[in-house]
């Protein structure tokens, strides 16, 4: 007996075809049994369908929008069953995202039936000051990356005597490779909003904003639906006053994740940061005291109030309590959204949860473009704010990318610098011009024109940019370069001294070669070459080749490969 059919319909699921699957299911199954749920967290197996029966749930993976597939699935046949990586269960701790993928994101009743808004009810029975104390006791630290204790921030705003106080949820998740906040907003919007309402009560704020990336249409839609449900149910009535909650869409500027820039953008201006002090809690949105927390931080709050700060603080480590969401990506078997207790080691995340082949990963990039690359020898480092800082990386918002031994670290650093150089708002000279010069230097190195002085220049310029920049963007932009220089200097030196990219990734330092002995002369490469540089006797003209890899991809016998330019001869001398 099938009770409910749940389809994972967060952005990843939809991108993998969940909507077509849902439409097909709707043709044969009764509508009232079909539920659209949020992210189930196993992106690699999308589209995923969960069928709830009297005997428990059965999961199907890689579901196809095909009549036969759907019918067999609804007969509960034993095929394409989804079995999560058993290792993963061992390491993961679903806490903040416990309800993600289990409930309809925009059903207030479902959220309430699972304990939703009990945190708010409990908070309203306490004195506002007690709520702030509870958050302080939990030692919740800002999940946006900085790690500032949330309870402290709350107490700053609570102490303000102005009548109009503002709370802003920073949902401008712009780090490439990060989708933690998107998942929370898409899958459990009510939980985050409950956290914001608790904060409003605790600090006496009367205006709530959510500043969300415009690239997240589903998150914006789900938040707006949830907000109207809250207003209808009167949950936003706090201290006899209706609190207004507004979602504001950003317009695509990474620097707006920085709090003073975010406030400018909310005010409709160019999103440039300004000097602090005054801190936003003194003078923020339109001059009013304003407090900014990140999406994940707010999503933790209802759980802290429900459990009590002390019990919450038992999760994780002493100085980094609770759990952290990570967007796992890169050279892994199982990518996706994971939630782990603070203090777990990097190795356990990428090998245990990510299922990477033992020994295949040479570094992880943690914290996005502001973060750093951590090499293999530090994979037993616990993931907490302080240990990561010691290595020159940062917790960041939660992007975690595994880099295998076949990737070039100089190119990785160049990629991140390219991002920050483009996103620099231009206000501070060292950030605007410094990142540009660093990028040009890195391009010389990856392009095969670098010298040993270039490598020195990078190490010299990095700390200066950090010192000479006003906001977090410039202060962290050199991190990817400085950490790769620290841990992978040999790769830089090989590029400049030997003109060799050990990972064979940098286009200017490689050639494409067809191995005549393996080649079966099928002609696929010639047919697929977009620039027609492969001759009839299967020789590639590397002068005009764009290194697009099309031929390598289509070769049925793997006879084509990227090789070192100029063979093994040392061309540097």
């Amino acid at each position, binding site marked *: 007996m099938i009770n409910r059919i749940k389809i994972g319909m967060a952005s990843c699921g939809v991108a993998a075809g969940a909507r077509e699957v849902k439409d097909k299911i709707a043709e044969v199954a009764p509508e009232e049994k079909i539920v659209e749920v949020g992210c189930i967290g196993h992106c690699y197996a999308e589209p995923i369908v969960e069928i709830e029966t009297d005997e428990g749930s059965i999961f199907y993976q890689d579901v196809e929008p095909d009549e036969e597939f759907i019918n067999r699935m609804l007969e509960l046949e034993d095929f394409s069953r989804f079995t999560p990586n058993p290792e993963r269960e061992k390491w993961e701790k679903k806490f903040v995202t416990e309800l993600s993928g289990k409930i309809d994101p925009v059903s207030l009743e479902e959220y309430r039936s699972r304990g939703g808004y009990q945190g708010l009810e409990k908070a309203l029975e306490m004195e506002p000051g007690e709520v702030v104390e509870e958050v302080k006791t939990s030692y919740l630290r800002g999940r946006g990356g900085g790690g500032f204790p949330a309870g402290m921030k709350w107490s700053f705003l609570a102490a303000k005597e102005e009548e109009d106080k503002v709370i802003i949820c920073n949902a401008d998740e712009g780090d490439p490779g990060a989708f933690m906040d998107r998942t929370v907003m898409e899958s459990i919007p009510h939980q985050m909003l409950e956290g914001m309402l608790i904060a409003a009560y605790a600090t006496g704020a009367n205006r709530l904003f959510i500043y969300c990336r415009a690239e997240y249409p589903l998150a914006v839609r789900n938040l707006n639906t949830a907000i109207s449900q809250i207003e209808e149910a009167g949950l936003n009535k706090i201290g006899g006053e209706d609190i207004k909650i507004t979602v504001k869409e950003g317009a695509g500027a990474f620097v707006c994740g920085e709090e003073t820039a975010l406030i400018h953008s909310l005010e409709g201006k160019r999103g440039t940061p300004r000097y602090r002090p005054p801190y936003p809690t003194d003078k923020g949105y339109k001059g009013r005291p304003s407090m900014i927390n990140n999406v994940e931080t707010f999503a933790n709050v209802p759980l802290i109030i429900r459990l009590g700060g002390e019990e919450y603080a038992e999760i994780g480590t002493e100085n980094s309590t609770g759990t952290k969401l990570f967007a796992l990506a890169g050279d892994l078997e199982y990518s996706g959204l994971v939630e782990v207790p603070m203090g777990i080691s990097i190795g356990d995340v990428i090998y245990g949860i990510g299922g990477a082949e033992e020994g295949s990963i040479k570094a992880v990039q943690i914290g*996005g473009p502001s973060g750093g690359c951590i090499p293999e020898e530090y994979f037993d480092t616990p993931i907490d704010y302080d240990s990561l800082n010691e290595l020159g990386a940062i917790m960041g918002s939660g992007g975690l990318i595994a880099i295998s031994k076949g990737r070039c670290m100089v190119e990785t650093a160049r990629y991140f610098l390219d991002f920050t150089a483009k996103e620099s708002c231009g206000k501070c000279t060292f950030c605007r011009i410094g990142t540009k010069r660093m990028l040009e230097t890195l391009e010389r190195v990856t392009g095969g024109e670098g010298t040993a002085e270039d490598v020195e220049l990078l190490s010299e310029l990095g700390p200066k940019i950090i010192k000479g920049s006003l906001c977090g963007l410039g202060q962290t932009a050199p991190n990817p370069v400085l950490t790769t220089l620290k841990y992978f200097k040999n790769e830089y030196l090989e590029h400049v001294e030997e003109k060799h990219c050990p990972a064979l990734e940098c286009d200017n330092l490689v050639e494409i070669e067809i191995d005549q002995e393996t080649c079966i002369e099928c002609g696929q490469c010639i047919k697929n070459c977009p620039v027609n540089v492969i001759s009839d006797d299967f020789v590639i003209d590397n002068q005009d080749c764009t290194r697009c890899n099309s031929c390598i991809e289509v070769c049925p016998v793997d006879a084509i490969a990227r090789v070192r330019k100029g063979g093994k001869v040392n061309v540097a001398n």
Partner: protein
Amino acid sequence: MPDLAALGQEKSNLIKALQEQQKEEGYISDQAIKDISREFDMAPVEVEGVVSFYTQFKRIKPGKYKIQVCDGTACHIIGSKLVLNWAKDHLGIAEGETDEEGLFSLDAVACLGCCSLAPVISINGKVYGDLTRKKLLKILEDYRAREEEV
């Protein structure tokens, strides 16, 4: 058309007004800058300043199908640069350009948030993942064929 006069009452609505304008026309035209600056009681150059600051706003009329090639970290590592090159070669346009028929425009964008499907592109918001060159060209040709049918 967005109600610029109403939005213009409150300066903090400027970005919203620009977003609605762009939703309507697909880009921010010179005329739109003039209209908005009048309603918001700002100099056109101030409006232009906000427009140029945010990457979302386009000053060139986009094609009917807007291709966004994701260059987020996960896609980049797996080869988004190649995807972009394949698309450029096939369409004969560079990043930020629109083809002559006004059918396709091409942009590289920061993360689309579908990292586990890398490399991905989106065409008018619909995401296509796990791309290979063959798959990409087929997708583009399917769009063109559909257009020619109509």
